[in-house]
């Protein structure tokens, strides 16, 4: 059984009296010890999908569908029960390591706190565990670092500390929302390699939110491509990069500069339509070169191992 299963998740916000779905009925599964990347451009709904899994969306959002963790629908359980799961079984790391740590608390306290809160450890035991966690995320001189404050650490170190906090309670799922965007490329590669190692060691599932295809190629097992609130393509990382099928994914991949090709970059024409003016059918159709009459009707996500939401690719 999948550790996390998102079923027909729809997230709507009220704009000028009408509800508009920012995430329009997406479904995907995450298996144990697997890294799933959700990719898409800004505003496609990938971050709010992540927040909705954590139950951290504002009360102004309307959620429909189901998010099943271990067979338990997270959308239906109480806030109190959710607080017990959050940070313990599901944890999340954020984009900005510079501001994601409390500036007035020591690193050690911040790593020890989830252990005290969720596992009921004494401060002494939690502190020892915090030291092991810092060693796990490859921070040298861990016992000295525990007594330092966030401003005494570099960006890469802080993101490692964030990962240590996220992993403190040995969660089943780690959701990482663009964890490497604020880091430079070498540190980025180190952090990704670290996450991958820890995933193998701890039988962890990772949901990585990113817009960076380099990150995807580096770490993903499977990739979900989102466009304007729709999940448009879902495939293993090899299949996606070798044979992208959805027109947006194809365009997305060919809009990246490559060192081994001299041809001109092909930007995707047009813009994402605003949320209150979405086309009825395929949401990418206004920008798609292959769109036909049929695309005015909503396509379904078809296929088994390699799923695509496109009328033109039904047979894949």
């Amino acid at each position: 059984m999948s550790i996390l299963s998102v079923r027909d998740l729809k997230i709507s916000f009220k704009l000028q009296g009408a509800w508009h779905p920012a995430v329009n009925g997406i479904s995907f599964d995450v298996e144990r010890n697997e890294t799933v990347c959700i990719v898409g451009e800004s505003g496609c709904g990938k971050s709010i999908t992540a927040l909705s899994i954590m139950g951290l969306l504002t009360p102004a959002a309307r959620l429909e569908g189901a998010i099943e963790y271990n067979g338990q629908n997270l959308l239906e359980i109480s806030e109190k029960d959710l607080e017990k799961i959050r940070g313990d079984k599901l944890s999340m790391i954020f984009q900005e390591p510079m501001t994601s740590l409390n500036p007035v608390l020591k690193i050690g306290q911040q790593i020890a706190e989830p252990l005290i809160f969720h596992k009921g450890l004494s401060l002494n035991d939690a502190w020892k565990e915090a030291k092991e966690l810092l060693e796990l995320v490859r921070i040298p001189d861990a016992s000295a670092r525990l007594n330092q404050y966030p401003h005494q650490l570099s960006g890469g170190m802080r993101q490692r500390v964030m990962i240590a906090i996220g992993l403190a309670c040995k969660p089943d799922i780690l959701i990482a929302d663009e964890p490497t965007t604020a880091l430079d490329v070498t540190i980025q590669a180190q952090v990704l390699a670290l996450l991958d190692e820890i995933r193998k060691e701890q039988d962890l599932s990772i949901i990585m939110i990113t817009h960076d295809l380099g990150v995807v190629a580096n770490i993903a097992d499977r990739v979900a491509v989102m466009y304007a609130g729709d999940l448009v393509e879902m495939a293993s990382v090899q299949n996606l990069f070798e044979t992208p099928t959805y027109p947006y994914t194809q365009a997305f991949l060919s809009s990246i500069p490559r060192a081994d090709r001299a041809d001109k970059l092909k930007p995707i024409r047009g813009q994402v339509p605003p949320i209150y003016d979405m086309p009825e059918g395929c949401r990418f159709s206004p920008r798609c070169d292959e769109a036909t009459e049929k695309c005015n009707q909503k396509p379904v996500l078809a296929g088994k191992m390699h799923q695509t939401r496109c009328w033109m690719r039904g047979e894949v």
Partner: protein
Amino acid sequence: MRTDSLNKRFFSWVFNLNPLTALTALGLVIFSLILVVSLAAPIVAPYDPLEQNILNRLQGASSDHWLGTDVFGRDTLSRILHGAQISLVIGLTSTGIALVAGTGLGIVAGYYGGWTDIVLMRLMDILLAFPTLITGLLIVAVLGTNPINIVIAIAITLLPNFARVARAPTITLKEREFIESCRALGYSDIRIMGVHILPNVIGEVVVLASLWTASAIMIEAYLSFIGLGVAPPTPTLGGMIRQGLENILDTPWVTIYPGFAVMFIVLALNLIGDGVRDAIDPKAGGRS
């Protein structure tokens, strides 16, 4: 560099203390001196603070009366020593109560926002709209005059200041990413407010508390002056300043000496307040 030594007390879990600076130490010395001398007033005071001697009224400093005598011939030094004791107790307890309650209310209002914020802060505005004397007067008039009610009245008049000072940074803090991270770790609202927001806010509050302790001592003096404070003949510093005002042109020392006493208390508290802020703020400390 510090080693793996672990602070086990709750206080140092929330507030990591940096080493004290020389000025803070000076503040602590002055304050402890005042505290010890005033607590030991019954022993060290040369005269009974209530004993009148009408033949010796309004005398200047002499070897008999180091700081002179007041309008009833009572020894000013003895009265300052006894008065400091009462003023300190009233000033510190009322500021303490206001600090705890006001900071709590301010953080709650800022953290939850919306109606909670509107209701709490409008209540604070109502309290602030009245001059401190009027608020204190109303509360004492309703509750009746005894030392506990005076402390409560002063605490309530100071409370809105603390609430405002604590609320403003809370509003910006709660939008910071580390608070979002706290939610993602499943922490309860109370834990986020107590363990993550409070240590970020307390520095500013404590510095101002040292100033407001002086205000508390003065509010007590106003209340004494209109007969709602600590009743005469019991000496308080504020009461003595007020009483001396009547003859300030002829015999200024009756007012000036207790004034100096208030000044030293406030100076010492300010130095301590500054030190406490530096001790709490990890970036201000000399630690690396």
